[in-house]
């Protein structure tokens, strides 16, 4: 197989995986899911680091800007998603035990 075809294979298979893993998401979680997926593409930070590693002059400046932007995307994205999900779980845990007790009492 020629190089581009190998990459194309990885791409096509990833498309199917990407659709498959989220196909059963409930609409309750749309906002955190979107925010979490958004954070994952922040991994472009990796690319920004690689291209900046040997840059100099204008290219270095541009590379550093790219690193700052990508880091905002990645770190901010994961943190804000966690903040949202924390609220979902915090109230869920005591709630489920609470209703179980109520059910037993009735």
């Amino acid at each position, binding site marked *: 197989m020629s190089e581009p075809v190998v990459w194309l294979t990885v791409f096509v298979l990833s498309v199917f995986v990407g659709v498959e893993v989220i196909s059963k998401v409930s609409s309750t979680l749309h906002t955190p899911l979107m925010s979490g997926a958004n954070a994952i593409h922040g991994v472009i930070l990796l690319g920004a680091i690689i291209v900046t590693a040997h840059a100099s002059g204008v290219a270095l400046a541009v590379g550093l800007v790219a690193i700052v932007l990508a880091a905002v995307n990645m770190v901010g994205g*994961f943190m804000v998603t966690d903040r949202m999900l924390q609220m979902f779980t915090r109230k869920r845990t005591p709630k489920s035990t609470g209703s179980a007790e109520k059910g037993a009492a009735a």
Partner: protein
Amino acid sequence: MSIPVWAQVVYLGCAVAFILALKGLSGPRTARTGNLIGAAAAVVACALPFFYLDDMDNVVLILVAIAVGTAGGAYGARTVQMTQMPQMVALFNGVGGGAAALVALLELDEIAGTGLDLGWFVLAATAFTVFVGSVSFAGSVVTFAKLQELMTSRPVVFPGLAVVFAAALLGGLVLSGLLVAEPAIWAGIVLALVGLAFGLLLVLPVGGADVPIVISLLNAFTGLTVAAGGYVLSNTLLLVAGTLVGASGTFLTLLMARAMGRSVANILFGALKGGSTLGSGEASDRPVKSAGPTDAAIMLGYADRVIIVPGYGLAVAQAQHSLRELVDVLGERDIKVDYAIHPVAGRMPGHMNVLLAEAQVPYEQLKEMDEINGDFKDADVVLVVGANDVVNPAAKTTPGAPIYGMPILNADDAKQIIFMKRSMRPGFAGIENELLFDEKTTLLFGDAKDTMSKLVNAVKAL
């Protein structure tokens, strides 16, 4: 510069972790763990180059830049109000797209400088990354401005928009072609500028109610941009991660568009064709029936079945805590109360669930649209708080209305409707709501938080 085998294996591990992260995020119990797995994988992936790149220059500067970005992102993530979540996601997405475009420009500079023949496929991917990344950046900035109300949320159109739009797209394609034929940095820079212009033109004509779909679409765009960037840099992790986000984002966009009864093409290009009649955005002076908190309390307190329709206005007024108190008080009177959550309630899909979770509303009381729509006809009272477009019957009765075809909550089936509103101002879609003038409807004017606490006290006093 080839990546050592051990590093490639670690990248593969990170790719698997991203898949697990997405899978975790789509289930309520596993979501938080999923997100943490994704975060850990991202950190590991970004640390790798420091270990395998030979004689890396600029290490200190790179670390400083990472620290600056981390501080900025963390500050935004910690301080943002839950009501402003959609614009935060849009902003994070935009900077990601911008970063990808810059990375591709730098790589193009390198390719042009060394004169290596990498084949047209790599150059085409570079052009794609530069163009779509710029589109995503500019589009997200406009989305942010619309949601933050720095500019009008109504569609912005001007004569000849369709022509300029087509010209920008054509320009992007021609420049991409030039770039593939002859990799030159000037072509890349012009392509980025055209991309920025195209991003503006793409999002400006989109009306406020459709902006959430656009956030999701731009998220998918950035994903695909990162994937193409991964191919340019021969980095499998970027390819897989970007593709995962691109594919799932596209799927999610289609899912949401379906929930709104619209096609993505209609959302993006509806205004271009001039097909939709736009809301006037003005209040009308037709007569309505209004009442005070005491009357509303009597209606609610002596009902058997109450359904609450919360909207974005509730969260803006920070009234969700008082609302929960009201529901608790009604529950003590043995009244069955549920919340009816429209899929696009709030400013992005699923947003209302986040806002009510913040107020610690029990999850079981939140009912999705399909689950509760049949119950409205049995409801004695529907209390609409800060919502508007999601109960607007125009979606069913007025072909040509911007929200026509969007499935709505059947609040108009209830015996009585109480509308808690600050003013007669129309909703985010900018169209008038016939339900306000229905004879079953009573309006309760005032700030949602203030009125809600008065309502709680009035019910307690019954």
